[in-house]
């Protein structure tokens, strides 16, 4: 049946035929007898990566296959969400090795985007923790791949946006935790220079990220709050927390029930929001111990906050610049503040060194900004793309809905190699998405 599908940014939206499976045999059959397919997890990528003519919903492919509580190894089907996994892992003293800023994504989505977390500089991306996985490729066969088995398929699947086939099973390692709490420190930074200095100073912390106010000019240009954290030890908990150090946080849910009119999000409201956010921390530095949920997933507390951007939707613009070019950040933020097109969320993170075929992270700084879709936006973002290219950076495919083809081919050094591997496993273009068409990834 035709269904209207859109991902987290609500842009673009298309009519798609959706199918879902619970048995591998049926899925394999379906893949080998159909064309123009793309796997879809929970639709939490922002743009058009999991949109296509026929989408294969993986959400019912959600069985946990094994959990080694001694060694910390999880094996599950690709449609399991991080949310479901945390419910099982945390009470047993384990945590996800890598988690993005939302827990409502599937494991297949985590692999296909090769997601990064606040700990990239220490623990790398999701691909660094995979033991092995199964992929149903364009020939309709299931291939097991890993860093030492079918390595070309493995590396092209990590960050490969579903173009090598359907990931069905993933086995990966976990992180030992003693408590379900995080010892966090929040530090106010006066401006961009200050926050970059703080990132260096605090780089021994496992988790770090900063919220930037990107509308401030002058001395306060780039003022931010750096947030760093570590999994708390039992000794660091207060008496109440220590009673049950590994209990799951209570599930509380607020929701934005419908699309807000877009005029609510204009420059003024962004300024007010940022002012409040910055000033809610009165002291320069705050130290406390908090449950892991607000630390990792502050936005998940408000389900469907994406509807706050109105019907036209929004795009997220996330780029990374090599470490030696952090001055590029200034150039880009300046363009945004001059334009006055701020964003509620401007998140700055640092990436560590990573070898990758097609994954997004590289050693350097990454910034993510939201922009409501409006007239002139895409032209403006094309201008920002030029600056990103000029500084040797690139854009995150999982957030992208509009990048021009040339930008991709110029900025991903292994693009040709990736496309060649995709061709081999996805021969007669069985897997295609709006994104792969736009960027000509399966040509």
């Amino acid at each position, binding site marked *: *049946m035709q269904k209207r599908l859109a991902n987290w940014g609500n842009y673009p939206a298309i009519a798609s035929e*959706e199918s879902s499976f*619970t048995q591998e045999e049926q899925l394999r059959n379906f893949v080998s007898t159909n064309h123009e397919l793309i796997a879809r997890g929970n639709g939490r990528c922002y743009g058009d990566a999991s949109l296509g003519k026929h989408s294969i919903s993986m959400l*019912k492919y959600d069985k*946990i*296959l094994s959990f080694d509580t001694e060694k910390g190894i999880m094996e599950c089907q690709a449609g399991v969400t991080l949310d479901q996994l945390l419910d*099982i892992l945390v009470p047993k003293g384990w945590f996800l090795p890598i988690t993005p800023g939302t827990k409502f994504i599937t494991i297949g989505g985590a692999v296909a985007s090769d997601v990064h977390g606040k700990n990239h500089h220490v623990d790398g991306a999701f691909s660094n923790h995979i033991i092995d996985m199964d992929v149903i490729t364009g020939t309709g066969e299931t291939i097991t791949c890993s860093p030492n088995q079918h390595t070309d398929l493995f590396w092209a699947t990590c960050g490969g946006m579903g173009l090598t086939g359907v990931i069905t099973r993933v086995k990966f390692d976990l992180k030992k935790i003693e408590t379900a709490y995080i010892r966090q420190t929040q530090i106010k930074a006066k401006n961009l220079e200050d926050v970059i200095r703080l990132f260096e100073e605090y780089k021994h912390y496992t988790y770090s990220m900063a919220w930037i106010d990107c509308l401030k000019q002058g001395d306060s240009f780039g003022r931010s709050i750096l947030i760093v954290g570590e999994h708390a030890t039992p000794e660091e908990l207060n008496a109440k927390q220590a009673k049950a150090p590994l209990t799951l946080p209570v599930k509380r849910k607020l929701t934005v029930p419908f699309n807000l009119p877009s005029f609510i999000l204009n420059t003024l409201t962004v300024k007010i929001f940022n002012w409040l956010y910055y000033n809610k921390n009165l002291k320069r530095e705050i130290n406390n111990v908090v449950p892991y949920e607000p630390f990792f997933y502050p936005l998940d507390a408000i389900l469907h906050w994406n509807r706050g951007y109105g019907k036209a939707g929004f795009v997220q613009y996330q780029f990374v610049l090599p470490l030696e070019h952090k001055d590029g950040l200034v150039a880009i933020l300046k363009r945004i503040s001059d334009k006055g097109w701020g964003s509620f969320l401007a998140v700055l993170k640092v990436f560590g060194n990573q070898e990758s075929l097609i994954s997004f992270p590289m050693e350097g700084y990454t910034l993510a900004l939201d922009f409501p879709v409006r007239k002139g936006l895409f032209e403006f973002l094309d201008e920002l793309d030029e600056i990103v290219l000029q500084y040797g950076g690139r854009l995150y495919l999982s957030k992208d809905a509009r990048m021009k083809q040339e930008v991709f081919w110029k900025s991903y050094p292994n693009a040709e190699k990736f496309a060649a591997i995709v061709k081999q496993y996805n021969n007669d273009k069985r897997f295609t998405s709006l994104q792969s068409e736009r960027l000509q990834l399966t040509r």
Partner: protein
Amino acid sequence: MPSVLILGAGSDMAVAIARAYASRKYDLQLAARSGQALIPLQQDLQIRHSVNVTVHDFDATAFNSHAAFYEQLPVIPDISICVFGYLGDQEKAETNWLEAERIINSNYTGAVSILNIIAERYITKGSGTIIGISSVAGERGRMSNYIYGSAKAGFSAYLSGLRNRLFHKGIHVMSVQPGFVNTQMTQHLALPPLLTAQPEAVAAAVLKAADKKKNTLFVKWHWKYIMLIIRNIPEGMFKKLKL
């Protein structure tokens, strides 16, 4: 530990029911044509809920195997749920007996065969609950699916008679009419969203109604009234409609 037997455990609705009972710490016996195919679900339930789960081969249309199937179950389950069914292809079944037979056997004859065996066991034991998932399609035959509908009608009548008989032996029988459910069986049909239930909602409703010892359950309350209307349209008028 209390336990549940689920017949036809591979379907979306069955998975949701299995998860709901597992989260209440029931042990589970899962049965489907290929027990092997249920292994991922078995692992999943064991890991998530720390309950015991066994898997079994069960073919609703292989009537002769039903007694032996039931004999080899590890324990007599407290609750037995008949979830299996086969929608089939109405048009094909009109001219192809094999298809018609498969629809009838999967939805009616097979269910009668296994539930007869279960009923006898429960009578000897003096307790038990039987839940049958029937269909609103059994309320009145319509041109678009009357082979399936007539088999479900038979099943509904069977359950109602069984309920009547077993009531006197302290055994509870519940029939469920889920209406449209968003499952693999229906994913290519354009179902009206307001009338379509998610499998998880069906499961929650089934557990709640079983706790309260309800006799019949319409999962979305609208269905009760829709079927009331559909049942009461005079036949002379009904036959002219293209339903």
